[in-house]
């Protein structure tokens, strides 16, 4: 299951688009798709609004996640993880997506890959808490890269 993202991380023919190297934070193939949708390559209005919309979405989700951790609402955490997984994956934020997926699984009383049941709620909460740290880090890195790309930082 985990290996299915391998192809995403294969380096794309980045030279053709003249995009900066986003490193392994952002999957270029996926992100390029969105850039291609921009009508104006200088303004990049569409992708910009998508990316910045995602920032808002992610930050709101993080706050909800923190609150859910407080209230130990694992189901809600799983749901939030899934929610952010979808949008981060669509943007190609691979690391953020992977972390979100883990949280989704933990919140559903599963192990990291979602294959084995984990009945210990505290263990699940603990794992979610641990995963939140790299999640926020990865997100912050991606945010910096993207904001630099859009020239707003």
């Amino acid at each position, binding site marked *: *299951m985990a290996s*299915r993202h391998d192809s995403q991380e294969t380096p794309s023919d980045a030279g053709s688009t003249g995009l900066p190297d986003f490193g392994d934070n952002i999957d270029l193939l996926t992100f*390029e798709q969105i850039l*291609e949708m921009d009508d104006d390559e200088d303004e990049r209005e569409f992708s910009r609004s*998508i990316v910045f919309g995602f920032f808002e979405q992610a930050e709101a989700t993080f706050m909800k996640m923190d609150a859910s951790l407080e209230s130990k609402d694992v189901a809600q955490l799983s749901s939030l993880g899934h929610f952010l997984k979808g949008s981060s994956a*669509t943007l190609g934020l691979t690391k953020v997506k992977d972390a979100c*997926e883990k949280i989704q699984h933990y919140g559903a009383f599963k192990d990291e890959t979602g294959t084995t049941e984990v009945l210990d709620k505290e263990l699940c909460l603990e794992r979610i808490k641990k995963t939140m740290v790299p999640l926020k880090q990865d997100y912050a890195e991606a945010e910096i890269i993207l904001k630099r790309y859009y020239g707003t930082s």
Partner: protein
Amino acid sequence: MDGSQAAGAAGANSSSDFVRKLYKMLEDPSYSQVVRWGDEGDSFVVLENERFTKSILPKHFKHSNFASFVRQLNKYDFHKVRHNNEDTGQSPYGPGAWEFKHPEFKANNKDSLDNIRRKAPAPRKPNQQGGEEALPTQQMDLVNSQLIATQQQLEQLQLRYNEIHMSQSMLMQELIGVQKTVLNHEHVMQNVMSYLHTVDARQRRDSRIGGPFADASENQAPPVSVDPGQQQISPLEDEPASPLQNASKLLSDLNADAQLNYKNLENMTELHNRANGTLTTPPPDSASRNGHQRAPTSAGSSTTMSYAKLHADRDTLVYPVGQTQGIDPMYSEHINNIPYPMPSKDQEIPEARRSTVDGRKKSTQVDPGWIRDPQILLVEDDPTCRRIGSKFLYSFQCAIDSAFDGLEAVNKMNAGSKYDMVLMDIIMPNLDGVSACHLIRQFDSTPIIAMTSNIRSDDISMYFQHGMNDVLPKPFTKEGLLGMLEKHLGHLKKIPNGLDSMGPHSAQSITQTSAAQSLKDANSPNQSPSTISNWHSPGTFQGISPTTAGANPFMQPMHPAAGYPMDQSQLQFQQPHTPLAAPRQQPHRRQISDMSGGDELNNEAKRQRLFAQQNGMAMSQMQRPRPG
């Protein structure tokens, strides 16, 4: 006198009034000084002209005009008796006396009065007068009765016409129903055929290569019809067994015929409706319209998917002809439905293709060549995904409607919104995608594509069990999305042969995803020319598989999802695959594609892709070692 009077009363009726009055007057003895019978009783004499005129005439004839009395007498052929033989010329009754005489007017002979008639002109005159009066009224009566009769006839005709009309409508409905059944049957046949084809193809492959994958799939789906002859086919030949070929050729011919018939029938129904615009005839009208929309529900779950396709297929056949169907503004098929291609698009196609071929350059305007903008419902709770998905769809010339969750999607569809395809997220608040699909399937058969990152095989089988038609793994790629559109909306593609401008580009315009793709399109007819009419079968299969227990285990290992964990770019792995056989032109191909609407070229590509998908890794593995 009294006795004769009584007797006279009996005969009086037939005689003239005037004569009777005259007779009665003469019977009165008190007038004898003024007017009396002649001496011989065969005439009467007016003795005193003046007194007669003044006192008697008014009493009996209601006038006092002697001249008119004489005229009346003349009319009845009375004659004044002249006494010319006398020297003096004087009447024996006195100088002023007038004696009148009629052969039948005799004293004491009342019966003979009946013989006294008005003179010739007189009898003629009453006739004439009667005729003049009677004729108009008679004519009027005649005309009146004729009119009434005609009206009655008309009324009866109207009734009869209505009856016939009703029965005709019913017949038409029946006919349409029968036709639908025939189409369904045909589709079932095609499904069977396509199944046989896959089995056949696998059989052939196994006999040649016998790889581990083939073995595995064979165990789960034992060959149904194995033609011993196919074993002799040379390795380069990728032809299905000849019985299969024949069968599918027959089927495709039949298919075309049925569609043509259907078109005629629709024409008829429509003309019929139009001609009877004044008479409200909802039955055939609504039937044909419902046929478009609701027919699949009655077709049963096993054929819903394919049936919807066929239906839409018919639309593509009908529309370019320029037929105006009963336009239902609520019917999405009629919204934005342009029966002719947009002129600008033809120019965009090569361009778009070039851009994809030349590399991943900016290609925002990919035009898959729809006959009209497909109506897509995007059900997605995540705003980022929704926006990007919408943008992609928009760039594929689709009209997009979106729903926040399954509940909204169900409500939209239940409210009568018609879509060509639904892209459905699975995990959503309020109502998840699988439940929403299950609900929608109760009343609608629009293709529903699960759009999710949960793509383990048990997930996928659940999606299919609840009526989903396909799975688009998340995060979806532009190519993956376009592939889904082309796979499930083949009936909305422009007909390459029918439109001259499309001619040379027909193969390329279908798929712009890669050069290899178009290469494959060009070759695909040769790979399996006999499967023309079965292009949609893989989609159907996937739709069916959950409902038929037997097919389910067969489908699972075939589906791309099974191979997914191995390779994220599963959706693209089939693109670089090389054509199996060297191009061989088959003349009858064109013909068949013409007959069945020429959609095959498009669908051939789709089928091809599916074929590759279905056979998964086995396919790509076995292709590599093969030289050509």
